[in-house]
């Protein structure tokens, strides 16, 4: 499967978009920070040292320590791994399931379409985080449960976008040509239609990623994420909030970590959308 024209246009235009590049730099920084730092830091993210608690930045602990005397920088980096894991897992799963359902719905139509779409409507009727809270409360606070919950929340949007695009592309001349040639419907869908839907899917995926990270942070802030002592950013923010007055570092830094990551992915997503969305393009020029 070769790169679709849209994907090639995207990559070329990315270089020219300031927003997308800033986003890309931030995302790159977060990924490098989370993946490389744990290899370099000498500290254990869960090892407590109570007599060394709430140290200010500087010295052996570059960013100081939290209320249990754990190194903040190390915890932030390990927290980044958790966030990225959730982000990637949720996005990939949402894409796979959402695109599958959406394509089926849009391509087959009829009763299949109606059933799938009403199901998606029902899921979308719930506020996202609320549904995720309910699901995690049922499944328990494990990585799998969190990913599953956020995926269930994320799938409907993909399904809708893909369904609409597939229905549009279904009428295109190249599809009609393929049908006339007697190509099998499933081959048409996979080989001709879906590659031409990649634009909206990519945009949706880049927007889903920060949403998933924010969702995980929100869940763990509310105490529903990974159980302690996992260094999830949301939990770190929640735990250190009580110490804002005496040691603001931990709360500010964990909040900043969430902020930078989400901002980075949002800028990247926005940039890509601006490039791919014809309406936005007209509005700008």
């Amino acid at each position, binding site marked *: 499967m070769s790169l679709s024209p849209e994907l090639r246009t995207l990559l070329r235009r990315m270089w020219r978009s300031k927003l997308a590049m800033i986003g890309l730099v931030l995302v790159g920084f977060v990924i490098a920070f989370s993946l490389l730092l744990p290899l370099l830091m000498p500290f254990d993210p869960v090892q407590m040292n*109570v007599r060394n608690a709430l140290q200010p930045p500087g010295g052996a602990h570059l960013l100081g320590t939290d209320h*249990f005397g754990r190194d903040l920088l190390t915890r932030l980096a390990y927290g980044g791994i958790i966030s990225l894991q959730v982000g990637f897992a949720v996005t990939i799963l949402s894409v796979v399931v959402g695109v599958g359902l959406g394509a089926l719905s849009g391509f087959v139509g009829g009763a299949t379409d109606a059933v799938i779409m009403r199901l998606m409507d029902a899921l979308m009727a719930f506020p996202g985080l609320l549904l995720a809270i309910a699901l995690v409360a049922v499944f328990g606070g494990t990585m799998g449960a969190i990913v599953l919950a956020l995926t269930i929340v994320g799938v409907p949007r993909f399904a809708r976008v893909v369904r609409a695009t597939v229905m549009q592309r279904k009428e295109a001349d190249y599809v009609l040509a393929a049908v006339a040639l007697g190509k099998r419907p499933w081959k048409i869908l996979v080989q001709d239609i879906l590659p031409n839907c990649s634009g909206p899917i990519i945009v949706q995926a880049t927007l889903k990623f920060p949403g998933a990270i924010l969702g995980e942070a929100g869940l763990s802030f509310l105490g529903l994420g990974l*159980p*302690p002592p996992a260094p999830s950013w949301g939990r770190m923010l929640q735990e250190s909030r*009580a*110490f804002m007055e*005496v040691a603001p570092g931990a709360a500010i830094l964990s909040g900043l970590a969430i902020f930078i990551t989400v901002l980075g992915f949002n800028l990247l997503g926005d940039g890509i959308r601006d490039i791919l969305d014809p309406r936005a393009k007209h509005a700008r020029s």
Partner: protein
Amino acid sequence: MKRTGLLTATALCVTLASGALWADEPRRGGTLTIGVSSTTVTNGIDPHVILGDNTVWALSQIGEGLLHFDANMNIVPWLAHSYSISDDGLVYTFELEQGVKFHNGREMVAEDVKFSLERILDPETGSRRRQNLEIIDRIEVVDDQIVEVHLQSAFAPFLANMVGVWAAVIPPESVNDDGTITHPVGTGPFRFNNYDMGENLTLDRFDDYWREDVPYVDSVVMTPVSDDAARMVALRTGAVDLITSVPAQLLPSLMANDDRGFELLISPGTSWRMATMNTTRAPFDDVRVRQAVDLALDREELMLARTFGFGHVDNQIWDEGSVWRMEANLPQRDLGRVSELLEEAGHGDGLDITIEARSLYLDDAQLVQSQLNEAGFNASIVVSDWAALAERMRSNNFDMVVAAAGWYADPDGRYARFYTPEGPANFYAGGYDNPEVTELLDEARRLNDNDQRRALYQQVFDTLQHDVPNPILYFAPNTMAWSHDVRDFRTDRQGGFSNAETGLKYVWLDR
């Protein structure tokens, strides 16, 4: 030790500084607003059905018992101005104070005492004091001012169980036909005005209160402010006049700052954290595993991390000033012995356990987890909703729970509640059931001599120190803060504030 001394000295200074202001003449009027560190000010408004410390405080403004504690935790007469005990210890005769009025204007008589005690004894009421008073055989009204309580057998803790709002005297007309109470009426310094669950509790001054002069303020509003930061802001901005529980992490800087803008009181505290182990199933049915946990804990570190040195470490709830103080050795962390014990119990290559806690005690649970994992356990944490967790604890379906409990006046109140199978707090001791302990406690109840009782409780204590179903982790300090214009707010020796000589009835506002 040196540090503790210094802290006590500083705490005394704070109190003394306020003491100088007490010389002023109390003034009437004003509304006292209190920020309570909880999501609910009280868990109900029925004085006989009490759940939790906040509820005791809130309802003890409304209802009062025949007896009370003074600031030094001695039992003193209250609604009964005197009492006598028959030689065989079976009959307690209470002579009531004259001219005590209920909030509805009617005078309290002996018949009301009989009604109240019988209501507590009625299982339908759901009083948590029922077990403590079950020993009552019958209540006889001699005349309007004298009531006799006959016991089935001599029961030394009886007087302690008659203290305070737990055994409040209430008028029968305040109870609905279905046995519930929706508008509590008592003899206390404040009248009930309004309460919605999770919202403010509003109390008004009772003008006909039987004690002279008090109370001074026109009304008291208790408002729930569970968030630490929000509660401090409320005090600093004057939204509330008094708060319970100042966050421990703020204490070092607040203590050092004379211009902090409010009064601060730090008392040793009576609330203790514990690690309850399920003694009814593996692995904690094996006493060696429980002992291993006990010896794996670094209590000093727990106390430091959670109270910043303002709490204290102890393995019993009675302080040095109490007659019930037991002879004890504080368990010290000994990781070598822990591995031996685990090895003997067949868990040499690590032991998987689950620690559960509600979010309030999650930090304690994390520290316990960390310390146990250092010692060779493999502990994981589950955060649980309290209602569901308590239910599972009652059905013995858990490994370990980190929780908290408070002070008990009489050793029977503590030991029988926790360490006998019928005790209402037995689930806090992991379903602990030791016939030897049950027998000793039964015996101690029938003795009236405190020295003899103490010897038996020492045996119970020693057995429990060996069996450690729910080792005490540390004691959290009791902290309160109030603005300068709140005067004469006094607490007892341990920081409590619903006793005879302490509390809201003596408070007045200098504004």
